[in-house]
């Protein structure tokens, strides 16, 4: 045992310097060339700075709403609901969200509401919604803003991000980018 203690202590210190220090410094150095110097992607709009990948709360009916958040859309923390699929309280909560959506979106049939719009994401900060989730909100937004549905539909289409290389993964729409363009649409 004794013969191993000093090598162990010294080897650990060297590993600490190399893996926590040098490795981190190298990555940090090269990351300075990444978008926004490696501090996360941002979007500037009307002098305000937004993080492109962090969901915002759009409770106002004139905006496309984000998915429900279990952490109140505050990226100081993060987290999912961790509710199991058979939990009665959870199912009642989802039912509540569906009912609320129906009230705010008259003329929409229940079968048109996609599940991602009434379920909370894993981190509570999901910046995206599915294409169907955007489409189902078009009617409401057109009515409130007094813009033709076709124009908003067009906006949804142009903001749809295709799967990677058109082949892999999901289609999605970044809610923040969509809402910024919506505000620009006069």
């Amino acid at each position: 045992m004794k013969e191993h203690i000093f090598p162990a202590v010294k080897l650990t210190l060297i590993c600490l310097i190399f893996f926590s220090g040098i490795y981190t410094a190298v990555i940090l150095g090269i990351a300075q060339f990444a978008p926004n110097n490696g501090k996360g992607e941002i979007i500037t709009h009307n002098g305000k700075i937004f993080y492109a990948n962090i969901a915002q709360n759009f409770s106002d009916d004139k905006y496309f709403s984000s998915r429900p958040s279990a952490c109140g859309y505050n990226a100081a923390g993060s987290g999912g609901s961790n509710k199991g699929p058979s939990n009665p309280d959870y199912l009642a909560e989802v039912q509540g969200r569906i009912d609320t959506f129906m009230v705010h979106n008259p003329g929409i049939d229940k079968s048109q509401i996609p599940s991602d719009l009434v379920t909370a994401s894993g981190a509570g900060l999901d910046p995206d919604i599915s294409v169907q989730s955007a489409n189902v909100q078009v009617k409401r937004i057109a009515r409130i803003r007094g813009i033709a549905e076709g124009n908003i539909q067009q906006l949804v289409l142009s903001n749809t991000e295709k799967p990677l290389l058109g082949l892999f993964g999901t289609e999605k729409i970044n809610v923040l980018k969509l809402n910024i363009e919506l505000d620009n649409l006069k």
Partner: protein
Amino acid sequence: MNTEILGVVLMYGLVVALAIPLGRYIGKVFSNEKTWLDKVFNPLDKLFYKLSGIDPSKEMNWKQHLLALLTINMFWFLICMFVLMDMGWLPLNPDGNPSMSPDLAFNTSVSFVTNTNLQHYSGETGLSYLGQLILMLWQFISAGTGIAICAVVFMAMKEKTTDKLGNFYNFFVRSSTRILFPLASVVALILAFNGSPMTFEGKDTMITMQGDTVQVSRGPVAAFVAIKQLGTNGGGFYGPNSAHPLENPDYLTNIVETVSIFLIPIAMIFAMGFVLKRKKLAWTIFGVMTIGFLCLVVPSVYYEMNGNPAISKMGIMQNMGSMEGKEVRFGSAASAYWAINTTVTSNGSVNAMHDSMTPLTGMFAMLGMMINSFYGGVGVGFLNFYIFIILAVFISGLMVGRTPEFLGKKIEAKEMKIAMIIALLHPFLILVSTALSSHLYAQNPTEYAGWLANPGNHGFSEMLYEFTSSSANNGSGFEGLGDNTPFWNIACGLVMLLARFLPIIGPVAIAGILASKKYIPESAGTLKTDTGTFGLMVFAVIFIVAALAFLPALTLGPIAEYFSLY
């Protein structure tokens, strides 16, 4: 074809295509053969040895290897305890996060030193940047430990009769610098250039479009996440791990992170083939593991893509699948695929909340951890599989009336006893500790009401999952469990300790004993271990020993929940 399924197929194809050449490279690293990275790493390794006073050419027997491993791990535990309990006043703490309580620090230190990365804290509020950097060190060196000790077993599986099995520090340093460090650097840079933060600035304040003021946690995320994925560690920078949009910003990073989970575990199998010059054996083992993995992953993807039947009944559209706890940018197929990747390999990172998945996906995730060797953790996954091979050799030897031999070495009573103890340890730890926690909860549901986020069978699954994850050194969780209490911190800590070191000691002891035995050349009477028939035998042993032991517990949890929903 569905683009979500295509994405999953791509991720599997990519990892196998990369793992084969990487396995050849790892084989060269273990055998001290020349590689194209020598120009950089020969001087670096020499510096490591010189400064720490280690002679890398000094050969050790299996007992000396274990002693070296245990000594250095004990020291790591002590440093980790110190930093976690004092990081409040130590430097690199821009957000002013507090130090950990002793029981939480114990749990976290054990968790990271044992390569488990079970997290009873949330990174944004529970750690300073110094804490994160220290934990990142264990993510490198606990993975390096696993790979190094696996190399020792490879050396012991060679034909010659010897008790000299290389130098532990040599394997450890080479695994960490030549395998983990270059891979982690590449992955970290891909993440940093695709939106993961890499900064030492603290939280940023942002005013949203609607005028709400929120904060955004940042930090040296990219560097941390790379090694967390590659070293089958799994401890996330942020609380929800790779579901967090800064930890895993888009589908491309998701592919890179998912591939990183399987890369080294699969490469280790091929590395064994190259070191021992037994490629057919490597392919047999890979085949068994792959079939096992597919049995778990295919139904999981199916159930997640089909959604939650209770939500279908509400009459809404569910063509994205079961989306509670999942991210739109990954979709349900890639989330279910990740869930099984991370549980069969003892990684434990998540990109969706396992607690909210449909019951059978939760069960397959648990089964992956209960078996814990379909690819398995870096290095240690192979060690677990080695135990199953020894059992299968013995049982098939008895069935056909031949002396049980593995790679020309006779397997006798002593080795079998060790193998049985190790094979039974895992079910013992999981079932006894789950029984204990269930008993406590049932005796006093009001006092322990904070434990469970979900009622009924799912609540039981939360406890079962937590101990399964601890014993498999996995680290994922049904995170609804209120686990930052002295009971869970200490109980899980003890389970992780026993479940890490005994399953290292056992296989190394068996391999060491076998290595010192006389080599018996292959004859007509030898049971061949690189055939499909033997592969089937190993599969049967795994099914009987590992899976059936857990069936009663799984019936009370996910299976009962399944029948209540469908």
